């Protein structure tokens, strides 16, 4: 009998080594808000000791970010994420999806509807009003999130000039590389509000020998649905993408960590070989750019920037991609990485979590923003749209003067300053 993911929890011997890796436990100190406590609740749910309509069970499982920060510290290799997905599917069967989540999914991921929503959001963003309204309240935080998606336009940060005001360009000559075809995954939010990140992805990959192709017929990856417990809808979306990307051999490049993590799991989600093969082609953009781990990407021009790297949970924990983003920064001379304690802790965005559990989400974020205030970087770099918006909104609300950027945007700036695109 298949246990739908609960079997991943069997290895837990309650040693408690996960507690300090859990952002929600750090926020509340309550065992029920810790991985170990939630595993006990999920086990009780599976055994039938607790029913899926138990209010306390739902309360604590809903408050889990799903960041999976507990997995890499677990000595027994408990598959917490799989267990959580199984438990949430049961909760969703029992009580349906909260109306707010349903509305958000409809507005953000339904083709046709979302196009209008994103168009309106971009118009609002262009007025500059969201930035002025940014704050901690529900509406103001949403404004801050929207403001954080705004591209920097013509402004360039950190370009270095010599005594006569000329840009300093790298001495390493650039030779065009033999090109390899890759397919670009556009996603929903990433495509609607972060098309500039897609542009930077195409350009930087081009310099590093990748010919990026557009793929029609693709759509949302289904991660938000899977996290909300809507497994069937997630499967439907996944199937659509599998059909769109076809059976070729080309890598599929993803620049949103949440989507990448989901797509790498398509094999498990759909349980067939074709999806397994597709999942094996998925690469985070930083993995492709870093190429072989020794050389890293083609270097760019120096940028005089202090950057704090905030690894997205779905890149670091779910995909296990830790080093490639650092290779990107290493390809930008002069750029200095600022150490921020607890950078690997979740920012509290976690897909729809920021919308559904604002209280916990802000509590988790506030700790990170405070540490960023102390570290005072000029730019916070992170490779996931949710994290960009969440951290951006937090910085704006706390009036901490730092911008949030995708790592490829920084590399893109560096290449532009180097004249690589001329």
């Amino acid at each position, binding site marked *: 009998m298949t246990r739908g993911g609960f079997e991943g929890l069997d290895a837990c011997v309650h*040693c408690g080594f996960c507690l300090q890796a859990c952002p929600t436990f750090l926020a509340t100190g309550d065992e029920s808000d810790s991985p170990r406590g939630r595993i006990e609740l999920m086990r*009780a749910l599976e055994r039938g000791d607790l029913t899926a309509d138990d209010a306390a069970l739902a309360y604590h499982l809903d408050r889990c970010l799903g960041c999976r920060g507990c997995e890499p510290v677990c000595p*027994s*290799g408990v598959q917490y994420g799989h267990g959580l997905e199984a438990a949430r599917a049961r909760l969703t069967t029992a009580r349906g999806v909260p109306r707010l989540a349903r509305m958000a999914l409809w507005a953000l991921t339904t083709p046709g509807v979302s196009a209008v929503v994103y168009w309106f959001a971009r118009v609002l963003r262009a007025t500059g009003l969201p930035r002025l309204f940014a704050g901690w309240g529900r509406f103001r935080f949403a404004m801050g999130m929207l403001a954080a998606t705004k591209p920097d336009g013509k402004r360039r940060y950190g370009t270095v000039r010599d005594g006569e005001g000329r840009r300093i360009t790298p001495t390493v000559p650039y030779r065009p590389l033999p090109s390899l075809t890759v397919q670009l995954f556009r996603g929903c939010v990433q495509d609607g509000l972060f098309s500039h990140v897609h542009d930077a992805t195409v350009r930087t990959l081009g310099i590093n020998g990748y010919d990026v192709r557009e793929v029609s017929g693709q759509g949302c990856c289904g991660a938000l649905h899977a996290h909300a417990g809507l497994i069937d809808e997630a499967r439907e979306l996944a199937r659509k993408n599998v059909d769109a990307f076809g059976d070729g051999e080309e890598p599929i490049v993803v620049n949103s960590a949440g989507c990448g993590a989901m797509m790498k799991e398509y094999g498990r989600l759909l349980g067939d070989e074709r999806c397994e093969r597709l999942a094996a082609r998925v690469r985070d953009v930083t993995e492709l750019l870093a190429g072989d781990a020794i050389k890293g990407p083609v270097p760019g021009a120096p940028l005089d920037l202090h950057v704090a790297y905030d690894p997205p949970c779905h890149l670091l924990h779910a995909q296990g991609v830790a080093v490639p983003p650092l290779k990107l920064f290493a390809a930008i001379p002069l750029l200095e990485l600022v150490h921020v304690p607890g950078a690997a802790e979740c920012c509290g965005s976690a897909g729809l979590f920021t919308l559904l559990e604002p209280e916990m989400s802000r509590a988790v974020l506030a700790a990170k923003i405070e540490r960023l205030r102390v570290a005072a970087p000029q730019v916070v770099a992170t490779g996931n749209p949710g994290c960009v918006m969440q951290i951006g909104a937090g910085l704006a609300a706390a009036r901490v003067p730092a911008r949030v950027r995708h790592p490829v945007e920084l590399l893109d700036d560096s290449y532009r300053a180097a004249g690589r695109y001329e």
Partner: protein
Amino acid sequence: MDGLPTHRRLPDLVVLPGTREELIAVVRLLAAHDVPFVPRGAGTGLSGGALADEGSVLIVLTRLNRILKMDAGNRAAIVEPGVVNAKLSAAAQPHGLQYAPDPSSQSACTIGGNVAENAGGPHCLKYGVTANHVLALELLLADGTMVESGSPGGEPWGPDLVGLFVGSEGNFGIATKITVRLTPLPRAVRTMLADFNGLRTAGEAVSAIIAAGIVPAALEMMDQSCIAAVEDSVYAAGYPRDAAAVLLVELDGRNEAGVIAETEAVAELLRKSGARSVRIAASEAERERLWQGRKKAFGAMGRLSRDLVVQDAVVPRSALPQVLETICTIAKRYDLVVSNVFHAGDGNLHPNISFDATDPALKQRVEAASAEIMSTCIAAGGTITGEHGVGIDKLRYMPLIFDPESLGAMQAVRRVFDPKERVNPGKVVPVHACREWTSIRSAKFGMRNDDRQFNSAFPISHSTLEPVP
């Protein structure tokens, strides 16, 4: 539930006070209504000491997690009970100091829990256990009164009440402020790994090092099944899988040259005692990896099996080789997986028995083997707990080493602090074995080997080892 997989309890109520004042108010309210309560830190304990029954209130201290004062000049810090052990050391590190007692669970466990259990750890071989590092305590007794004990310098003013409180397993009250001693970080450290073909030879190597008059900072042993669990985990440290046992030895001191000389001497001793190879960590990163493997070994036991009995016996170091061999024989006779990971330098054994509790026949074998291992250790001149405490898990062994008079005396001391036995009831002293069995309440919270069912959402038997009704 805590770090011990075999016991579960469901309290009637859980309280998470956010400040010292709230904690005091809660305890006074409970005193007014005569309700028993159990203090709990991070719940990493391995004797069930922080489990609360039906009828009691669980007071969780994780939110009292402030370091109140870092006094580098006097090498002391004042902390609240919920401060995480490793975080205290991290905060002391910029001052060139550390909090020396380092239980394997230090990344999660709290100082309050360390004080209650008198926690040990690998480096306690040289630096001493928690009791050697607590200078003063502010205590909240069961009836709600506040008491201060100890002194800033650590020298007791009057009887050593701090010494009495540390290790009282939550039976005397709650420590609300803890003044700890901080120790200078060693200037030179060397860590080495030696692997052996036999548990016995490894045990003999331990005796050889101690007999040579060398005091390592730590001297730890892991056996083959433990090595396999660690090497399969994210904390893989490169321990040789084909070794019957490995020894992790650390030497530290004030100057490089002295430590290097001592390292060479120990390496030589290890080789002479039959080590197949001796590897000295070449970098800080390698050293850290060797240690992480050891410290996360208990957590990795889930890779062997879902259920686990954890033991904590101490034997004279000279008896180690013989006791280890006997444990092996017992494991073979009962056809069980026994993993040994322990503080060899202290003679503090942790034989862990992995099993699947859903198999009743297996449970009986585990029970019988545990009892046999424990009596082997006692027969060798040892005792039933080195650092995990008695809690509820080792209650049944207490009458094996103490006569009723001694147990009665322990209970009398406890009643000085808590006359009604309301704090952490039913732990440490098995009242049914005690001649001074006076109150009905004590009986109620005494050794719980009855098969009473809970009327709760978690209908789980008390212990996977207790008889199935």
